[in-house]
């Protein structure tokens, strides 16, 4: 039996308290939404922003790392005698000097600053040398002799699945399986039985990297009082602080100060604590001199933590009108050599499918392998672009099978606002429908899709649509604790100066400015007049970092709270002076005045003075903790977020069918941002996401050289350079039509949701779908390279499958025993968020 009406899936949602600000009318806002300059705009266009490598200190030493030349080997012996003898060399560290392991997640403390006994990829650091000149340190590294005993290399997903030995790590599930997840929501059999059409597809998404323009750099200084200061290009100073405190034991944590410099691009690539940061700190302690390390571009590729290569198999059941009745999704992640954020990455490959479309019954299986590659981690979209690619291409195929409009199929499947998904994610505002309508109207989707065909220049044009969603900050911190995710302190000065202190880190996305805008709006003052002090663990309250698109919502809410508290104090002071009830006072244009008699008031500075005279020195704090997640099953901690952003994109391609070469002349993109705190800056994030998504779609990949030579296996990144790791240039950029969709969310400051990552997600599937529309071939792999389009066209010409992608059988996706699934009843089955077959467990461990 085919049901067209989805099961009633509205479930009661416990609402968080509704702050006043999310439904403020746009016209009532004076700062929020306006295209005000960023607080750091002037310094950035003047070359005055000081990035980590721009810093230097007297007597500073330069450090270099000697890195492994082997993909997988035991370290037999390290001889540093010759290096030590080189004039100018001041310090040498090896693994035994830094024996305590670290890692971003408490469950995978599997890295060492310098490998003590084993190297796991070409680029793994082994020795650190500091010298008076960088050249001397480099020369000294060449004098170090390292004897290796080669181990079998695990070169990728299939090899890791087939070879339990040698294990890269002695922890994990088994063999080289790092994580294995198996979650089942609802009744899959029933869902597939009710489907009018079931299709199964396999996809592959090759790894790619962040490629920030700034190469990571760190400066460490250990002063004579025994205090350590580390300046670094990190997105997560708090987590770096924790890693330093751990690895430099017994140095007390409160003797360590981490200052995150403005990041010259991060995109997730500077979110882990890194070897070079810890080694530089230790070297500064060893030598008693400041130590700087600035990585080369090649070393940035070794740091990586980028997009996981992921093989996927997706089985989808749909009704005859295209309603999704069941989704059975498997992902196989190539994690590289270390854990990094990989546990979260694995869950993220299964978490957000339900956030865009109401999947009635959902089964997710995910496995992450350890391999001898540079470690993968969080890149813009963290774990979700790969399954998003698979799902959006599969939906396109479904629509094609059923003769339906792919846009309509999506509109018919939208996850309802204010609902719980099958996997217990709490949806608030939901503007995906509006996004789809914008981009389809703008691109002339209805009239032009499938009809563009051959152009006068002999090439073929086509349109492709895809949608996506992303979280506005992870609901849980990296390490389990009950403390806030973000804190803001405000100091109000009798000069009228407001200083905001916050641990958040500006990586170019404008998080420093977010503080200014929100505080400026609440206090009615010029945001450019606010002093913003950020990302200094000595001075600023903890913010977890610039990752998972969390800053606008979390730091923003903390700033809002601190500013509202400050406003209350100032209002009381002004109220007494003016004889106007505090509740009637308006803060605007740097004045505090009576709403009923605007002439009656005082300047903001006078109001601050009045309040200071009355209450003493003015300082307030604000903090933010995300709402409790609805999911209570193991693994349910990854996916929940205060709110979800939505994006839809239509991409137009032009394909040269003789060669497979194609271009992207135009993109229409709409993003539901909740509310744009600053439209111009939000536009910048959307356009930047389109750019980066196009890079992933068309060309970027972490390719490896795999050669054998005299019984030795060479396995190394093929192209670790800006020239050969291909990224789009000014000439590849298409025309972009951007729509900022505002559907304010009650959990966001002024209703804001994220914008930094979400708009990247639809680009890759939209490109693949557009290629299909243009020339009728499917490339089920990212990147959709010219070669793959050509191969699919050849295959089509020869009457074979008009497709390029991994095989449907075991040669495409390996066979892995996922064990028994955790079974969770969906909200519409009356589920309470727990797994009914889950053994009783410690509540903390659940996280």
């Amino acid at each position, binding site marked *: 039996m085919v049901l067209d009406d989805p099961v009633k899936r509205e479930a009661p949602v416990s609402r968080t308290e509704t702050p006043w600000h999310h439904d403020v009318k746009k016209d009532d806002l004076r700062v929020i939404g306006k295209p005000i300059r960023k607080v750091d705009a002037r310094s950035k266009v003047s070359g005055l922003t000081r990035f980590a*490598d721009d810093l230097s200190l007297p007597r500073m030493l330069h450090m270099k790392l000697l*890195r*492994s*030349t*082997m993909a997988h080997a035991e370290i037999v012996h390290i001889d540093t005698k010759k290096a030590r003898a080189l004039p100018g060399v001041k310090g040498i560290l090896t693994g035994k000097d830094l024996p305590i392991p670290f890692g971003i997640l408490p469950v995978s403390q599997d890295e060492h600053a310098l490998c003590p006994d084993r190297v796991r990829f*070409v680029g793994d650091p082994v020795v650190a040398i500091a010298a008076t000149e*960088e*050249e001397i340190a*480099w020369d000294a590294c*060449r004098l170090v002799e390292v004897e290796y005993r080669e181990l079998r290399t695990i070169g990728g997903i299939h090899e890791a699945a087939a070879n339990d030995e040698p294990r890269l790590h002695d922890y994990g599930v088994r063999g080289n399986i790092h994580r294995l997840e198996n979650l089942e929501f609802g009744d899959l059999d029933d869902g597939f039985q009710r489907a009018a059409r079931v299709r199964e597809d396999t996809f592959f998404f090759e790894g790619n990297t962040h490629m920030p323009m700034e190469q990571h750099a760190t400066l460490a200084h250990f002063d004579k009082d025994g205090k350590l200061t580390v300046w670094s290009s990190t997105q997560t100073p708090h987590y770096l602080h924790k890693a330093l405190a751990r690895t430099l034991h017994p140095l007390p944590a409160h003797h360590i100060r981490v200052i995150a410099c403005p990041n010259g691009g991060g995109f997730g690539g500077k979110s882990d604590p890194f070897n070079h940061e810890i080694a530089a700190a230790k070297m500064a302690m060893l030598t008693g001199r400041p130590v700087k390390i*600035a990585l*080369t*571009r*090649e070393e940035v590729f070794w740091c990586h933590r980028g997009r996981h290569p992921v093989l996927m198999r997706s089985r989808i059941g749909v009704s005859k009108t295209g309603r999704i009745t069941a989704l059975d999704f498997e992902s196989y992640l190539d994690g590289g050599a270390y854990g990094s954020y990989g546990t979260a990455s694995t869950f993220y490959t299964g978490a957000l499918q339900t956030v865009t479309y109401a999947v009635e019954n959902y089964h997710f299986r995910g496995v992450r392998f350890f391999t001898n590659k540079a470690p993968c981690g969080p890149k813009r979209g963290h774990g979700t672009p790969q399954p998003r690619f698979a799902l959006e291409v599969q939906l396109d195929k479904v629509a094609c099978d059923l003769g339906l409009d792919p846009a309509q199929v999506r509109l018919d499947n939208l996850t309802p606002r204010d609902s719980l998904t099958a996997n217990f994610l709490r949806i608030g505002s939901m503007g995906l429908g509006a996004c789809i309508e914008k981009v389809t109207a703008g691109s002339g989707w209805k009239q032009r899709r499938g009809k563009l065909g051959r152009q006068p220049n002999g090439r073929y044009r086509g349109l492709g649509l895809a949608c996506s969603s992303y979280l506005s900050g992870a609901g849980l911190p990296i390490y389990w604790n009950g403390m806030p995710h973000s804190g803001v302190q405000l100091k109000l000065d009798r000069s009228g100066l407001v200083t905001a202190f916050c641990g958040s880190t500006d990586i170019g996305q404008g998080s420093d400015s977010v503080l200014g805008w929100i505080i400026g709006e609440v206090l009615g003052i010029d945001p450019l007049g606010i002093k913003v002090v950020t990302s200094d663990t000595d001075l600023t309250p903890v913010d977890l970092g610039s990752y998972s698109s969390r800053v606008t919502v979390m730091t923003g809410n903390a700033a809002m709270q601190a500013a509202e508290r400050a406003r209350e104090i100032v209002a009381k002071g002004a109220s007494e002076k003016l004889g106007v009830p505090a509740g009637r006072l308006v803060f605007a244009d740097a004045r505090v005045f009576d709403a009923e008699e605007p002439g009656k008031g005082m300047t903001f500075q006078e109001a601050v003075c009045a309040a200071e005279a009355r209450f003493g020195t003015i300082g307030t704090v604000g903090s933010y903790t995300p709402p409790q997640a609805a999911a209570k099953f193991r693994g349910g901690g990854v996916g929940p977020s205060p709110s979800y952003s939505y994006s839809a994109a239509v991409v137009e391609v032009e394909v040269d069918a*003789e*060669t*497979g*070469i194609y271009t992207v002349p135009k993109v229409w993109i709409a993003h539901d941002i909740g509310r744009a705190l600053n439209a111009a800056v939000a536009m910048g994030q959307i356009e930047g996401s389109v750019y980066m998504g196009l890079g992933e779609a068309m*060309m970027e990949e972490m390719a490896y*050289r795999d*050669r054998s*030579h005299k019984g030795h296996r*060479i396995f*190394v990144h*093929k*192209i*670790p*350079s800006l*020239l*050969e790791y*291909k990224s*789009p*240039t*000014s*000439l*590849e950029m298409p025309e972009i039509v951007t729509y900022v969709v505002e559907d304010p969310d009650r959990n966001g400051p002024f209703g804001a949701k994220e914008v930094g990552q979400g708009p990247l997600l639809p680009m890759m599937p939209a490109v693949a779908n557009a290629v299909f529309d243009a020339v009728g071939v499917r490339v089920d792999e990212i990147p959709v*390279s*010219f*070669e793959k389009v*050509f*191969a699919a066209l050849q295959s089509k010409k020869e009457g074979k499958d008009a497709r390029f992608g991994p095989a449907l059988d075991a040669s495409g996706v390996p066979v892995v025993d996922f064990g028994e699934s955790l079974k969770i009843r969906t909200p519409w089955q009356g589920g309470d968020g727990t797994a009914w077959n889950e053994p009783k467990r410690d509540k903390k461990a659940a996280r």
Partner: protein
Amino acid sequence: MLRLPTFTYHRPKTAADAVRIASEHGKDAMYVAGGTDLYPNMKRRHQTPAHVISLAAVPGLNTVEVQKDGRTSIGAMVRLATLEHHAHLLEHHPAFAHAVREISTPLLRNMGTIGGNLLLDTRCTYYDQSHEWRESIDFCMKKDGAICWVAPGSPRCWAVQSSDTVPVACAMEAEVELVGVEGARRLQCSALYRDDGIQYLTKKPEELLTRLVLPAPGNWKASYLKLRRRDTFDFPILGVGVCLWFERGVVVKANVRLGGAGSHAIPAVETEKLLLGQELTDEVIAAAGTAAMKPARTMDNTDQDVYWRRKVAPVFVARALAACR
């Protein structure tokens, strides 16, 4: 930061002085023009000359002269950016000017010279890597190692000719002027190159390339078509240089050179033969293009898939031929 190794810097005032210094130091000396090829290589320790001889102060190498016989003589130190905008070249040698414009980026063309581009080191993704990276593959025969990773059984190096101007200059039968210890000599551009990734030049190390001389306009037409992933930055992974001589619409002589497809600009001999005595009809062009698949010795040492590069070579050759219509 990647840094240069130390060296002694010379800036001779005449070509003869330059040659003298070079011959004095033999293998320890290298010339530098724009530095855009040499300095990256030195930073990656491909070349570590103890003596770097700058040609910046050598007079007469900065000019573009149209000779009385209609030929255009270009000094080796003329910047690529100058050539791409040069009115005479744009009018009379558009294919050459186009090839220059296809080189790398505008910033690099502001620095790089035509002499440097003609002598560009051959490239290979096993070679154009840092010292550390090459250490991880135990190096290769082009520098510090024993084997060619592209073809491990091969006694030779397969690094790729990657200049954009060489295929078209060779096809046009341009000449180059060299100054050596015994004075100046001229030779056909194509005679400057050898089919070897290491010894890719026929000139003696101390011989100084001083000029490129383009032929006078006549009954010929040239074209250059480049395959690469992006429209900037990238080296050619196929660069088709074509020059066809016509009489009454019939091809009487054809030079087709494939750059980026081997260690020198490979003559597509079969293609050339097929064109002789023919008009450039669609059929002739298609057949001539197909014949170029064989000589293209694409190897897995550049960007993009080796088989794809070979398969699309005929399309690019055909399009380059069509551009000569």
